């Protein structure tokens, strides 16, 4: 078949390449036009965010430019000149309804003809190419691949970009961004924001509570109740997690105004333990840790009377000969209860242990009496009230436990709620013979019997 009928036909291939380029450019432009509003929308979002958070204007500007460049690059990449693949030629052929002629001719145009010439010197493939070129030339490709009219998309994009520019200039700003734009330092902005966030009535209550605690004239139980009240107030300040930080700041201000320095000077053992316990909670969130530290400091001032009680408890324990872990546990329980949620839990469990180890009134011990760390009725009742409050708190907090947030594993939570259980399943070994496995296969259906027989007969 290899003859010299015709050489490859670069003209036809160039024509097809031009058509293909037009087709690809159209598709790329349509795609860019579809994507442009999204890019402009992204730019608008960035502009609004930049304005709100007080970022530099360069961020949305650069983003808009980059997005515009990316779209332009996409359009150029789609419409660049490149060799026409066979699939592309087939696609153009289908679009032009040429019945496979362009597809076939494009392939023949790329190589030397191999068929024998006819009497007039024109081979079949040469005739095929000539005929295909005529049909390609007679096809209105500009009508087949018209220019992309995406005015709506471009108008939308332009409008979004314009809105973005306007938003950059006159868009709304956050309070923080406004303060920063007024020349305040970030620390000053933070203080101002915190001051603005605390309601006046809450601030007044906190001041009053801190004042009462600072005076030190309260009984132990009253002091605890006040502390609880204070904590509740602090907890209400900011649901978003800033309450601890804010309370610290306010407590610091109140301490300076209410003269709590004497409490710091007192520095009793319980306060230091509370501080240690708070420090031991290094894994807690920063705001909670700050809150605990702050409360520990306040507690140090408010526990002067309580230290006396502890001394009595200690002497009582010495009488029973059971001084040690039980008393310390009860002591720690009281401190932790005042120190915060996490502390309350740990102290409560230890307190229970201490309670069980306490002896009764006799020399040999005896039945334990109610009271954490004490077998003396009056003090025990007070401690019992505090312990009851702690347990109630724990119950409330346990109900709000969230796996992965404030508890480590599901097992622990179940244990706390007395729901833990251990179970196992025994699977007996298969010791009996399953007769169904030895059953005969189902019979061949009558409809298939003749086919089955014929199937095997044919292969004989």
């Amino acid at each position, binding site marked *: 078949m290899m003859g010299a009928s015709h050489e490859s036909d670069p003209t036809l291939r160039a024509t097809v390449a031009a058509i293909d380029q037009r087709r690809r450019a159209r598709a790329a432009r349509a795609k860019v036009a579809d994507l442009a509003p999204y890019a402009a929308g992204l730019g608008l979002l960035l502009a609004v965010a930049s304005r709100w958070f007080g970022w530099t204007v360069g961020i949305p500007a650069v983003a808009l430019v980059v997005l515009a460049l990316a779209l332009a690059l996409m359009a150029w990449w789609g419409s660049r000149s490149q060799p026409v693949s*066979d699939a592309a030629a087939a696609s153009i052929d289908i679009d032009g309804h040429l019945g496979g002629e362009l597809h*076939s001719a494009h392939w*023949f145009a790329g190589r030397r003809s191999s*068929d024998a010439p006819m009497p007039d010197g024109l081979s079949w*493939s040469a005739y095929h190419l000539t005929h*295909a070129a005529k049909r390609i030339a007679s096809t209105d490709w500009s009508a087949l691949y018209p220019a992309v009219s995406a005015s709506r998309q471009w108008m939308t994009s332009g409008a979004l970009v314009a809105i973005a520019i306007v938003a950059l200039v006159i868009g709304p700003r956050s309070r923080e961004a406004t303060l920063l734009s007024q020349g305040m330092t970030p620390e000053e902005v933070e203080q101002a924001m915190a001051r603005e966030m605390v309601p006046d009535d809450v601030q007044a209550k906190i001041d009053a509570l801190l004042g009462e605690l600072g005076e030190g004239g309260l009984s132990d139980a009253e002091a605890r109740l006040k502390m609880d009240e204070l904590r509740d107030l602090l907890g209400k300040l900011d649901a978003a997690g800033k309450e601890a930080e804010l309370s610290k700041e306010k407590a610091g201000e109140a301490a300076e105004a209410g003269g709590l320095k004497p409490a710091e000077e007192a520095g009793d053992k319980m306060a230091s333990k509370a501080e240690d316990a708070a420090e031991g909670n290094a894994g807690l969130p920063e705001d909670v840790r700050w809150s605990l530290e702050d409360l520990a400091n306040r507690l140090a001032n408010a526990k002067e009377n309580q230290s006396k009680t502890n001394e009595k408890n200690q002497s009582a324990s010495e009488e029973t000969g059971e001084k040690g872990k039980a008393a310390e546990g009860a002591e720690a329980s009281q401190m932790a209860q005042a120190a915060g949620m996490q502390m309350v839990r740990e102290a409560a469990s230890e307190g229970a242990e201490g309670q069980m180890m306490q002896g009764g009134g006799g020399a040999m011990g005896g039945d334990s009496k109610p009271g954490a760390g004490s077998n003396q009725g009056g003090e025990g009742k007070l401690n019992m009230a505090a312990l009851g409050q702690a347990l109630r708190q724990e119950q409330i907090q346990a109900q709000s436990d969230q796996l992965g947030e404030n508890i480590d594993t599901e097992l622990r939570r179940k244990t706390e709620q007395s729901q833990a259980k251990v179970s196992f399943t025994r699977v007996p070994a298969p010791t009996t013979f399953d007769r169904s496995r030895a059953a005969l296969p189902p019979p061949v259906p009558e409809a298939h019997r003749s086919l089955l027989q014929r199937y095997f007969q044919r292969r004989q």
Partner: protein
Amino acid sequence: MSTAVEQHIDHFQERFVRITKEVGRRIVGNEDIVANTVTALLGGGHVLLEGIPGVGKTALVHTLSDVLHLKFSRIQFTPDLMPADIVGTNIVQEHDAGGTFFEFQPGPIFANIVLADEINRATPKTQSALLEAMQEMSVSVGKTTYKLEQPFLVLATQNPLEMEGTYPLPEAQLDRFFFKLKVTYPTEAAMHTILERTTQATTDQVERVVDADEILKMRYAARLVPIAQPVQGYAIRLTLGTHPTSPYATPMIKQYVRYGASPRAAQAVVLAAKIHALTHGQAFVSPENIRAVALPALRHRVLMNFEGEAEQVDADVMVNELLAGVSPDA
């Protein structure tokens, strides 16, 4: 002024249309069967006609032989038919001067168009007598090989319903048929025409349109049609796709087919596509031409496995699924 190629195309197209029109004067409906039969003749192949009795299979072959001005013979296949009854035999003759000699007496296979009626009723031994004739276009009797006259076309018919006492054609013989055509039951309108034509005192006479030389020229012209490699690749993918292990195979083919089509099937597809292109005035082969001829060229070459036969899955479904699944673009 038209070129030589254009003249060839026009001539081919005009003759093809005349043949089918003339056959259509006697055969009602089944235009695609007529066109495909002529295509197989021009492609140098043979045709297996399948249909229930009375739908005009034999009449079609008779009419075709009349239109083509070719030598026609008919063999009614029966279980007791022997190979010698088909190819011929050496018989003893006497010289005028005395003495005897063997003289070859040609069988009915020595014709241009051979109607092998109910081919599946003969034994495999007799069926195989056709194998050499169909493929090699020659017949060997004793030590002598006799060339068959060209064009040579075997039109075999078989009844798909009566399977008792039949010998289904082996795969090797099926593969030698260029096309397998299914003659369907005529429509109501076609039945009217059939009755009007066949129950009157006169019958339509057909005109002889082409002779053997003309057919051979048309065969040659069909082979000149160029086919681009991507289009040829489509035919190859379709052929390969009939094999259950092929990456082009569809899920049904993987489930129900034991063996697919042979390379001879791809030859038939391409050759038939070239003729199809010429009949549509094209000087090239398009994927559409391939698709038009793929079903009759592939359906009898798809061999079902037991599951396929038990569920009576039709090979046409397989090929149609393949046509839908395999893209013309590589």
